[in-house]
């Protein structure tokens, strides 16, 4: 899959809707591209199957990234993408169920992982195929339910559950380590009994490899850059909120076009 096209859509959608979270979306988009083009067995054709892979986008504020990928994979129409964030539109600023391809409404952090634990637990007991992928932000790991769920997944040996943390190290106001220290992050998940794999979250190949099966739940720490692909948005908290104006949009599109991804 071409994440470059998704990046173009993201900046256009966010700019047209005067919406926020463009940096978060550019951060997570390669993770989504990897799941929907490689590792994940999920498409409009098998979405009703109870043995398909399930993707839960717990990082609900990066809706523009998710919807772009769902458009490219054939779930969401171009018309709906064009109306993103407008009055009466199907698509809004946080991931919402009822939209084709969406499993769970998110936007309040800390819900996706326990929900995914429930699906994985039911499937394991019912001896059903299909894995559950939960995409989380690193700031989301401040939530207590993240660690409750980490206990639950290990206790029930949920080898059908994969968490991918978009580790861009920036949250609402500043660096994650200045907000509520997460490090040593990998060691925490390991201590909870998870298989931990740390990779470059913008490398689709590494992401796919990291999803290889394990006998325990898997936590992939995907190191990313917030705002990846647009120089003036990269590693900047401002672009958690700010929407690109016309001039900035043109510049962003130019950079995405000449960029590698």
């Amino acid at each position, binding site marked *: 899959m071409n994440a470059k096209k998704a990046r173009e859509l993201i900046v256009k959608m966010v700019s047209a809707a005067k919406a926020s979270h463009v940096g978060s979306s550019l951060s997570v988009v390669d993770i989504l591209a990897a799941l929907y083009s490689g590792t994940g067995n999920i498409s409009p054709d098998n979405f009703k199957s*109870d043995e398909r892979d399930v993707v839960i986008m717990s990082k609900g504020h990066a809706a523009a990234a998710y919807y772009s990928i769902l458009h490219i994979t054939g779930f969401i129409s171009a018309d709906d993408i064009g109306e993103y964030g407008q009055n009466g539109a199907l698509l809004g600023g946080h991931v919402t*169920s009822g939209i084709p391809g969406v*499993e*769970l*409404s998110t936007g*309040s952090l*800390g*819900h996706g*992982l*326990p*929900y*995914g*634990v*429930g*699906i*994985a*637990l*039911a*499937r394991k*007991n*019912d001896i*059903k195929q299909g894995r559950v992928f939960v995409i989380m932000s690193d700031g989301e790991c401040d939530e*207590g*339910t993240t660690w*409750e*769920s980490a*206990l*639950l997944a290990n*206790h029930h040996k949920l080898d059908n559950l994969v968490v991918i943390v978009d580790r861009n190290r920036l949250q609402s106001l500043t660096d994650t380590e200045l907000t509520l220290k997460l490090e040593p992050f990998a060691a925490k998940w390991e201590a909870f009994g998870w298989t931990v794999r740390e990779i470059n979250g913008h490398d689709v190949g590494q992401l796919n490899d990291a999803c290889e099966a394990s006998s325990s739940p898997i936590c992939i720490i995907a190191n990313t850059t917030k705002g990846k692909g647009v120089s003036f948005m990269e590693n900047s908290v401002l672009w958690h909120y700010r929407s690109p104006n016309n001039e900035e949009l043109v510049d962003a599109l130019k950079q995405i076009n000449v960029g590698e991804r």
Partner: protein
Amino acid sequence: MRDAFISSLIDAAEVDQNVTLITGDLGFGVFEEFAAKFPKQFFNSGVAEQSMLSMAAGMASAGRKVFAYSIGNFSTMRCLEQIRNDICYQKNPVTVVSVGGGYAYGNLGYSHHAIEDFSVMRTMPGLKIISPADRLEVESAISEIIKKPQPYYLRLGRNGENSIHQAKPEYKIGKLIQIAEGKNGTILFTGSIGLLAVAARNELAEQSINIGIYSVPFVNAIDPEELKRIATNGNIVVLEEHYYKGGLGSEVLEVLNEYGITALVHIVGSKRTNISQVGNREYLLTENEISVDRIVNFFRNSSKY
């Protein structure tokens, strides 16, 4: 009530392998039989109520009919957003179960007094509250829930309450269940507090005031036609083991107002006179002015209207 809940659930789980019970680490001496009989249908989330409710929702989305169980406030307020977003918005068939509604755990203190739960659960989108009057109504409730999978809040008392029914009543969402007839007014009650209504009725009957009694298990889904009929029968007392604002009384007033039905209504609920009080259930009911006297006095003093 708790024993009726688990025995009904065992019956249901025997015929439907999707019936699943998750407990937030409670139910010692109650759930052992269920756990032993249905190991793939029983889970203990540990003391992690928020994750329990999200997990219940996830399991329900995968085809299970889930009952998520804890005490009073722990399965409701502690995880209200999980109920709103993951259960209600997603329309997942999860029944949030709380045991010890009202002052059932009176001497355990304020943390265990569940007297504001209706007020927050009443407005959860698509969620139906069921508050059974006795163990026979609990059996009716479980049958109804299994038949119509959707989000529910099942508020149970504790154990050993006296029954108000002789036989298992028929449950239909919205319908009130008649306990006694009467031409001079009506008591609407919910939960295991109906015997106070019966006592009040008996006292009033001695003064030739004949009061009808209904159990109202569907706290946030009252059929307005039923209220219309009841309003033609004189004044109304709403009796509930809940703070007098925000519960069944408020629901009744809202329905009356919405449908333009005129009635004089008196809510006999907890006055929350002193939230630090401990004591057994009977003591706390009296201290918080949920009493036979209040019902009797209202009908006596309002009979001239």
